[in-house]
């Protein structure tokens, strides 16, 4: 009579976590105690891993980027060019990345499930775990929860995106609102990070001194943990205010701006580099309007170089700064684009066989993974679902996705799809 979903296990919601932890990532302090099994927490703390997820919303064509097949019937008009890896070619639209191909890996056999944007974006960004009737966190919130802030003075998960920003709770899923993301709309921090007009730095310092004095008196006779938690949120707010120059576009080196490009994606990837340098744990950079159902080739010619230059610059800069070994960079979308070119010279949604680029933090250098059919339409070796990628990401971040569990109200929830494995070929 009633349909019963065939879940393998189910999870309970969210609030159990927040209840016990008082403060989430937006609040400042992140406790491991109730969430992770003992032992693992200490191990994670020692490591300093960071992530930059470059999200090309709508889907980038694999044929016009990492997997050019100009000779095939689906190849399109662009040439392929040699890369720094002998025998490997990229599209001519990614000349800068072609020069540093030996520093990155490309997986050409992503084989995912969902051809719809509306469901595909969250599905992919949550790693498509087994349905347990709960809403899983997006990758950034998951990492914020599992690893905490890399720099205790900065929020662990920032999202740089065109348009509006603000505190966005919904990415956190069952982890609870405090593991949401602080979104920098067009790269700008929330307005409340700024000292109000008419309040000088001196006055600001003086009135905070008054506040601290009042707090000291109040706390002296009391022991409740709420008191510490509340004070911590202010301490963190002040630290962020003090570091607001890391959000300031005008403080960027003009040479860097030139190298990364002046379009939004270039500026935002440059800003991501600066925030990684400042110690932010996870940064997502969004670029929109990659959904090239019509006029795919002109659009690709305009869009893909906007990724190519700053991505290559980011990899080079991270390497120069000694950060590439602990910083994972991921370039991906919710799916690739169809081999068949439609009547509007566009390519449609294609989850069956598409490409992503990865670098750093234990990703092999110069590995091109996966065999496709000759025309690139289908996987001809092992296909990788998003669950495999999440296993790979978590493993590279020092977690064991087979053992690490979200623990909510005594229940253990897998952090990635139970039936997937890390993609060993792409890992050092």
């Amino acid at each position, binding site marked *: 009579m009633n349909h*019963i979903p065939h879940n393998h296990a*189910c999870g309970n919601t969210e609030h159990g976590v*927040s*209840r016990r932890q008082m403060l989430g990532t937006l609040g400042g302090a992140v406790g491991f105690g109730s969430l992770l099994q003992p032992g693992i927490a200490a191990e994670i703390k020692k490591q300093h891993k960071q992530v930059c997820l470059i999200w090309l919303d709508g889907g980038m064509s694999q044929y016009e980027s990492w997997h050019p097949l100009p000779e095939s019937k689906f190849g399109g008009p662009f040439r392929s060019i040699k890369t720094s890896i002998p025998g490997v070619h990229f599209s001519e639209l990614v000349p800068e990345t072609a020069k540093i191909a030996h520093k990155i890996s490309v997986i050409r056999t992503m084989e995912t499930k969902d051809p719809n944007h509306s469901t595909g974006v969250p599905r992919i960004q949550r790693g498509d775990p087994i349905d347990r009737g709960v809403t899983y966190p997006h990758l950034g919130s998951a990492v914020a929860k599992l690893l905490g802030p890399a720099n205790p003075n900065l929020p662990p998960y920032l999202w740089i995106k065109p348009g509006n920003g603000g505190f966005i709770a919904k990415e956190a899923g069952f982890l*609870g*609102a405090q593991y949401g993301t602080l979104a920098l709309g067009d790269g700008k921090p*929330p307005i409340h990070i700024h000292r109000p007009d008419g309040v000088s730095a001196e006055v600001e310092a003086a009135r905070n001194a008054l506040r601290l004095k009042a707090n000291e008196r109040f706390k002296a006779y*009391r022991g409740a943990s709420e*008191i510490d*938690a509340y004070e911590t949120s202010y301490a963190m707010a002040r630290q962020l205010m003090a570091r607001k120059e890391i959000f300031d576009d005008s403080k960027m080196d003009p040479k860097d701006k030139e190298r990364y490009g002046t379009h939004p994606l270039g500026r935002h990837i440059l800003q991501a580099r600066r925030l990684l340098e400042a110690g932010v744990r996870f940064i997502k950079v969004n670029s929109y309007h990659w959904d090239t159902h019509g006029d795919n080739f002109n659009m690709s010619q305009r869009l893909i170089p906007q990724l190519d230059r700053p991505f290559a610059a980011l990899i080079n800069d991270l390497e120069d700064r000694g950060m590439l070994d602990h910083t994972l960079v991921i370039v991906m979308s919710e799916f690739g684009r169809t081999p068949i070119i439609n009547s509007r010279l566009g390519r449609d949604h294609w989850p069956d066989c598409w490409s992503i680029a990865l670098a750093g933090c234990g990703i092999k250098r110069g590995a091109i993974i996966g065999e496709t059919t000759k025309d690139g339409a289908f996987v001809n070796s092992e296909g990788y679902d998003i669950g495999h990628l999440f296993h790979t990401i978590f493993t590279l971040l020092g977690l064991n996705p087979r053992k690490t569990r979200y623990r909510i109200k005594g229940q253990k929830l897998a952090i990635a799809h139970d039936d997937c494995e890390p993609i060993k070929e792409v890992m050092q």
Partner: protein
Amino acid sequence: MRRIIFICILLPVLSGWAAERLSPRIDKLIVAKAGGSVATRSDDSEFFRRVKLDLTGRIPSATDTRSFLQDTTSSKRAKLIDRLIASDAFATHWTDRLSVMLLERQKLGKITDEEWREFLAKNLKGKPRWDVLAQEMVGATGQGDERPAMKFLGTADHHAMTEDVARLFLGMDLKCAKCHDHPSVNEWKQAHYWGLFSYLNQTKHATNSKDKQTYLVEGVAMKKVDFQSVFKTEKEITGPRLPGGKEVAIPMFAKGQEFEKPAADGLPGVPKFRPRELLARDLTSKNNTYFVRNGVNRIWYLMMGRGLVHPLDELHTQNPSSHPKLMELLMREFVAHEFDVKWFVREIALSESYQRSSRLPNGVKKIEVTRYRTAHPKAMTPEQLLKAVLKATGNEAWVTKLKATDNAEKFDRRGYFTGTNHEVPTSFEEIRALFMLTYAEPAGTPEVDFIPGLNKALFLMNDRLIQDWLKPQKGNLIERLTKLETPKSIAEEMYLSMLARLPEVDEVATVANYLERNNKRRAAALGDLAWALLTSTEFRLNH
């Protein structure tokens, strides 16, 4: 004469209040498990602010605090409690609290917020009974005066209703038991979930073709519900059954005999067997210990800041009450007093356990929160905070009167937070919305424990509304302060208005010193001093 005496003796016995008062018995059981010294009684300021916040949702004014402090009547606390419980402000505040607890800020179904609030407030102004409220919500049809109660059942989604009834009225978070027995709570079975479900799975919305209103109706239950654990191969079946109760047999009627009333005006026929109506009756029965315990625990939490069983939705033997004997007593008494919410709130408020100071007992560094040795500081709810900020800064009168003009463009809230919208909201409704966006949890999330946050701190620190309210204008606090001469009178007015207490000697000195150093910017300096109290922990917590 003899008759009168006879009545005087018997009446209390008959009406049940001859029995020992509850509050001292609460205290006895709390002290028995304290495991150490307890804090002293709260001083009058501490008590006054706390009880005003808990019973009316508002901090007291400076004038009210002064007169309470000066009142020398020994029974002034009890009198105050009675006065506050009888006030309209009690109904307003407890409407906020119960509404947030039961709807979790979700806007579902056809009943407007205003209708729902009016329904709750009407109850709370009279003699609110927890069992009757629950019965009206769970059994709601949309007919009659209790029509707004149907908001609780939202969109009549069968699973959402099952989970909400279990969690909010039985303290059982049964979400996991949808697909299998609960993995860690042994006594929560999948059969519990589906037993409740089969009381609710005939319920749906239907619209009356005449009055165009939507009602909750029940279809004809023909058979039991079958369910299957994802870990098992065989199916199980259940009819309507409450946790701990007996399964209700589903009666079979001859074709055409199922209905008590035939279909009319677009509404389906009313079946003779209406399981949801039975649920509303049996769920809320005084014999349903799950229901009674949950009711006691939630009201205790609202007053004391922590459930005797905590988390509130984990009422099971593996998560026992911190005070089992007290829980038993409260359950017994709550039933004996017909689930009278006001009676229970009053008894808690009268107890020494409630009236303790939040300051640690002498020589004690740390206490376990489950022992109630001090008053547990509660975070102000978003509603309390907004009112408190406005009242403390003396801007309540004019700000709450701000009305949206009809042709006002829709205010860009997101832009307000990101800096693309430089306007200041011009209606109280918008101001309230900005506060809720910042301080409330997202819809559908319970608000139980205190979750501070970076954005919440930043808002009080730097928001331009707050800065504006700390400038002298329209008779607000800062304007009043600019007219006072001595640092002592300034400090007193400020501390009474904002923290409901008189300043200590060194706090007066701090004020004097700061004003002295900033004598060229006196009004601004007063704003700084007030800002520091507004952002202080003492202000944010109901301690």
